[in-house]
């Protein structure tokens, strides 16, 4: 579609851009104490964007001369990004860490990051892949270091910037090799060019695929590209940790699925269960091993943590591992499983982080000890946190169980060669039970049983906790509408 014509389908991104500008200008008007009011502008813009996506309908087309895809698949991820951004903006009102800082830039940058994530979910041109990846990365460096008087936050953002710039540089080199081999920057053109390559360019192709995998692996924090994750997640403001563990990961999976499906797959990918055109490397097995290692490392290190925030950071590596189980299949069922899991993961993980933010503000820390007796002091928060922990483990009847069910079903259905992967995944879920239940133990069995019962002082906290807890609970047994929506969203733009 031509540039001018594309604009009529580009409303969500345009509204977000206007939101960012409005937020930056309004930040100049407000005084320091009122700077949190920028959040209302951003919230309004995000809600409008959500409507714009709904009104846009489900056209399947390319925009801006084949750089961006417009399809239900990207719309699903855009909705996911918007829900998590709205939730994080609301959470930030209650954050104790952010109180001492001017908040205008914080909210504007969150909105810019949402634009970058939109582009990540819909890029079909390596130029746009790199642009979107960098927009998201640079904004997350900034947000990770937002507490500029806090040495932990400084350190987190420095580590993030070094790892991020390094891995995007490596990925860029892979992309340049791919451009050199194919002579085009469009996914579809690359696919046909790769199919016509002779065997003597196989080595270069493998090299570029491995380099590109490093970039994607960094974004979804897969082992062995995960080293930044725990430190960055621990040092960042907890609201940003919650955001980083959900939204960029979802967009990273979207970009990775689209890229491997279109560049290294063939037109039968997603239908048949083969997706490798690269000879010489057993891709499905390699991805399977990466998934198994990712979840095992995440779980084994999560067990040893004393801080709930750091534990959740490692457990998010493990969750990325569960989702990666479906990548070697690259079948429709596998992608479907990943999408369902991401939606369930969004609610339960944001909810768990929100409880950590709340406990941090009220009891001044995020260690397991700070949760002692919470279940008796504040039964509502305790019960909700218990629900999130059960759901993250994958126990029925919670959303996490449904997510895991679809993932494991896809893996098992793919054939006997993947049974070992499903077994490793199941064993890992059992291991994760140990450290999730530890939180529940601290809340109900340790510390004093207080006689007086408290509710959260602010009604916004109660509403937000309910908004995360209700989907986590209800989607555990009434998931038909969501599952239908996701199966309708499984339409990926495949070229005109």
């Amino acid at each position, binding site marked *: 579609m031509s540039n001018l014509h594309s604009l009529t389908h580009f409303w969500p991104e345009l509204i977000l851009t206007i939101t960012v500008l409005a937020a930056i200008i309004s930040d100049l008007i407000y005084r320091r104490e009122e700077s949190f009011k920028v959040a209302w502008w951003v919230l309004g813009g995000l809600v409008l964007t959500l409507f714009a996506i709904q009104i846009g309908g489900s056209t399947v087309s390319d925009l801006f001369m084949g750089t961006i895809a417009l399809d239900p698949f990207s719309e699903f991820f855009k909705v996911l990004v918007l829900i998590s951004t709205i939730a994080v903006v609301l959470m930030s009102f209650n954050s104790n860490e952010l109180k001492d800082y001017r908040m205008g830039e914080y909210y504007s940058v969150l909105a810019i990051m949402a634009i970058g994530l939109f582009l990540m979910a819909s890029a079909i041109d390596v130029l746009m892949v*790199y642009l979107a990846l*960098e927009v998201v990365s640079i904004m997350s460096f900034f947000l990770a*270091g937002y507490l500029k008087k806090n*040495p*932990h936050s*400084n350190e987190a953002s420095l580590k993030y910037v*070094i790892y991020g*710039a*390094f891995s995007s540089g490596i990925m860029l080199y892979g992309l340049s090799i791919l451009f050199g081999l194919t002579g085009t*920057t469009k996914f579809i053109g690359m696919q046909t060019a790769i199919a016509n390559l002779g065997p003597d360019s196989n080595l270069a192709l493998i090299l570029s695929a491995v380099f590109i995998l490093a970039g994607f692996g960094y974004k979804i924090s897969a082992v062995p590209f995960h080293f930044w994750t725990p430190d960055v997640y621990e040092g960042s403001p907890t609201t940003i940790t919650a955001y980083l563990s959900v939204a960029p990961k979802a967009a990273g999976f979207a970009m990775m699925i689209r890229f491997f499906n279109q560049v290294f797959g063939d037109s039968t990918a997603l239908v048949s269960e083969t997706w490798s055109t690269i000879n010489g490397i057993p891709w499905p097995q390699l991805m399977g091993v990466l998934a198994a290692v990712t979840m095992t490392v995440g779980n084994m290190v999560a067990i040893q943590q004393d801080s709930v925030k750091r534990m959740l950071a490692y457990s998010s590596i493990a969750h990325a591992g569960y989702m990666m189980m479906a990548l070697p299949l690259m079948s429709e069922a596998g992608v479907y499983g990943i999408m369902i899991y991401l939606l369930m993961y969004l609610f339960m993980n944001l909810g768990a982080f929100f409880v950590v933010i709340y406990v941090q503000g009220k009891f001044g820390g995020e260690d397991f000890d700070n949760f002692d007796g919470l279940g008796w002091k504040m039964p509502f928060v305790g019960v909700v946190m218990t629900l999130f922990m059960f759901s993250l483990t994958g126990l029925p009847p919670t959303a996490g169980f449904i997510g895991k069910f679809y993932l494991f079903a896809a893996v098992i259905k793919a054939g006997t060669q993947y049974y070992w992967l499903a077994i490793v995944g199941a064993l890992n879920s059992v291991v994760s039970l140990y450290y999730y239940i530890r939180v529940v133990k601290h809340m109900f069995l340790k510390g004093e049983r207080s006689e007086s019962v408290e509710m959260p002082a602010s009604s916004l906290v109660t509403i937000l906790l309910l908004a995360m807890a209700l989907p986590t609970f209800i989607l555990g047994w009434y998931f038909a509408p969501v599952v239908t929506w996701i199966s309708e969203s499984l339409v990926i733009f495949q070229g005109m």
Partner: protein
Amino acid sequence: MVVPLEHVIALSMILFSIGVLGVLFRRNAITIFMSIELMLNAVNLALVGFSRYYNSVDGQVFVFLVMTLAAAEVAVGLAIIIALYRNRQTVNIDEINLMKN
């Protein structure tokens, strides 16, 4: 005289390797940033070479994009280093280890 594509690619590979080694073995945050710049410029060189090989401008457009984004990345990176230096009085990444488990 026309420089053959192989020479351009070889030079870009050498520059890229120097950049990677710099990131892995240098301990000063500023030097690490310079090494990352070297990696990105190696990519630019390769892209320009390929672009001329294919007689298309796609690669050159890519180079401009990379240069702009690299500048933005370094601007944020240097701001972060300054914020860190104010609190810790060091830019040596071996001493930046508050979070170790």
